[in-house]
């Protein structure tokens, strides 16, 4: 992504408070044209509030929002023509068919593809004349996406596009989003799935408590915690494990215990694992489980906050 492309979305010092809950707390964002940008964070981090302020559906308490170079208070109608929006948990009318729903949404926009074209795009051809009430969760989500596409948007907002879907339906939706990326559309999506953010997003902002706590490409974020691998093991209960010697081993950055599992952040897997086996052998502790994986955005979040993305 060239650094000098114009910003599709610019947010400065955004704040929003609901009663006594601070949902967004001084947020800055800049999304470049043509990139897929992810807001990653646990539920309640302020992702939906942020995206809905950008969509012009919620008014911020303070701060500036500039979408496609325009502001909501002066160019709302023009912006609505040029944005594609998928909200979290919209239930479209059950009694109308897929084709009827898309024809309705298409009628709101000046230009864009025909309902039939969008149906083809989200692969709902067989369901075109079925009522929305009879669709599966994945099909409903694809229809919601189709509704966001009928205006041929320059900027696409997707709020938790795959929440509640089975793995296969999620894959299918990811493929669709990948295609839009290739067509050069700008996408802002929110998710609490780290794999989704890693898979789809050019850049990710990790959010927690209404603030961006880390920003960069998935690769940069993972590298920023300085570890490449995670080793997770469970020791037999024969005698208590002493974790202090583990921290001294070569290539080990950090060790902590969680529900009887021991988690080690490791920079060099090929040194750390033999050393771990040797140490366990020395302590006479049997090994019952051993897993290793490359560091993920989840590990970034855990490292930054001490909490998991999905726990709350």
């Amino acid at each position, binding site marked *: 992504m060239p650094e000098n492309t114009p910003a599709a979305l610019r947010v400065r010092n955004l704040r929003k408070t609901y009663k006594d809950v601070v949902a967004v707390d001084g947020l800055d964002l800049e999304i470049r044209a043509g990139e897929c940008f992810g807001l990653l964070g646990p539920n309640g981090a302020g992702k939906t509030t942020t995206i809905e302020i950008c969509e012009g559906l919620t008014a911020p308490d303070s701060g500036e929002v500039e979408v496609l170079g325009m502001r909501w208070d002066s160019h709302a109608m023009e912006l609505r023509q040029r944005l594609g929006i998928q909200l979290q948990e919209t239930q479209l*009318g059950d009694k109308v068919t897929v084709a*009827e729903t898309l024809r309705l949404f*298409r009628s709101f926009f000046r230009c864009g593809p025909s309902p039939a074209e969008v149906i083809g795009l989200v692969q709902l051809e067989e369901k075109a004349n079925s*009522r929305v009430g009879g669709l599966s969760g994945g099909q409903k989500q694809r229809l919601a996406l189709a509704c966001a*596409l009928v205006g041929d948007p*320059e900027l696409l907002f997707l709020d938790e596009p795959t929440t509640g879907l089975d793995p296969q339906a999620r894959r299918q939706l990811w493929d669709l989003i990948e295609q839009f990326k290739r067509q050069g559309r700008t996408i802002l999506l929110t998710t609490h799935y780290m794999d989704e953010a890693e898979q789809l997003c050019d850049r990710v902002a990790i959010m927690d408590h209404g603030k961006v706590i880390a920003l960069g490409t998935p690769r940069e974020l993972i590298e920023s915690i300085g570890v490449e691998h995670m080793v997770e093991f469970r020791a037999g209960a024969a005698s208590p494990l002493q974790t202090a010697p583990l921290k001294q081993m070569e290539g080990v950055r950090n060790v902590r215990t969680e529900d009887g599992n021991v988690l080690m952040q490791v920079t060099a897997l090929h040194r750390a694992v033999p050393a771990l086996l040797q140490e366990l052998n020395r302590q006479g502790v049997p090994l019952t489980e051993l897993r290793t994986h490359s560091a993920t955005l989840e590990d970034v979040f855990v490292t930054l906050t001490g909490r998991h993305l999905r726990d709350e």
Partner: protein
Amino acid sequence: MSDVTAIPELGAREDAAKAPRASTPADHALVQLTLTRFREFLREPEALFWVFIFPVLLAAGLGLAFRNRPADVLKIATVTPELAQSLRKDKLLDVQQLSQAAADQALRTGKVALLALPGANGAVVYRYDDTNPEGRTARMLADRAIQLAAGRVDPVPASDRLMREAGSRYIDFLIPGLLGMNLMGSAIWGMGFAIVDARRRKLMKRLIATPMPRHYYLLSFLLSRLIMLVVEVGFLLGFGVLIFKVPARGSLADLAVLCVVTSLSFGAIGLLIASRPQTIEAASGLMNLVMMPMWIVSGVFFSAQRFPDALQPVIRSLPLTAAIDALRANMLQGVGLIQLAPQLLVLAAWLVVCFPIALKLFRWR
């Protein structure tokens, strides 16, 4: 899915701009929104039942139960063939000739209203209960039959001209009442449920995230209501006029104006009710709270005049009372719009007060 899959290219904005799609009037947002209203309504069998079938069933049931019967034939008994013969000359009497014991039994058990017995010297004795109106009527009819048979000539010749006026029956009273009730129900339920359901589903929020002009959404309700109105009113009126011969004495154009004003007025009330609630339950409760008192006091099934005088000003200012009074006056007495100005003013007042408040309170999310 792989890269090989043929994907219609959406990204080509210039192409779309160069060749704007031929759009038909049917692709206008307002038309599409109104069509959606119809689809949602017509695909809900319960709604069809309540709007079309239920009022007709109600009218049919009540019309049958309270139909005007021809004057009852009175059952009486006697014990001699001579008396029976004289009495049978009156068509309003159903005369049975019984044994003395059977006749006594029939009178005691109320199977006959009167017993005509021969007295001394060709006289007649009537046995009946004088506290029973049927007994007293039977006494007059039986005596007239016997006196005429015996040769009495009335000094003044008299003849009957029977008048059974259409418009004075219960069904005539009922049909305009049901019509008013139906107009209220369809407007309030039709708006209330559809709007609150769209809010609950966050469908409304989704719609305002598009460039849809917000007033189109509300206009689509108005349009679909006015179109449905023709069908609904036609159905109930057609039924009343064709089957029960309910009179439609007023001008049909006036009736149409009354129905439209009534619908607009109740539409505004429906919109006000639906402006805030987030759940169907909350909306249902509100709708019943608003409609229930009017079902009772506004004169759907019986005249609103039965309520105490002190309450009349309140009752007359309710929209349903005004609507039903005007509909009855139009249909049964053929009264014109000018004389119905007070009722029209009441309806207009509800519209003018409720609509702006509803818009002010309305929540899109």
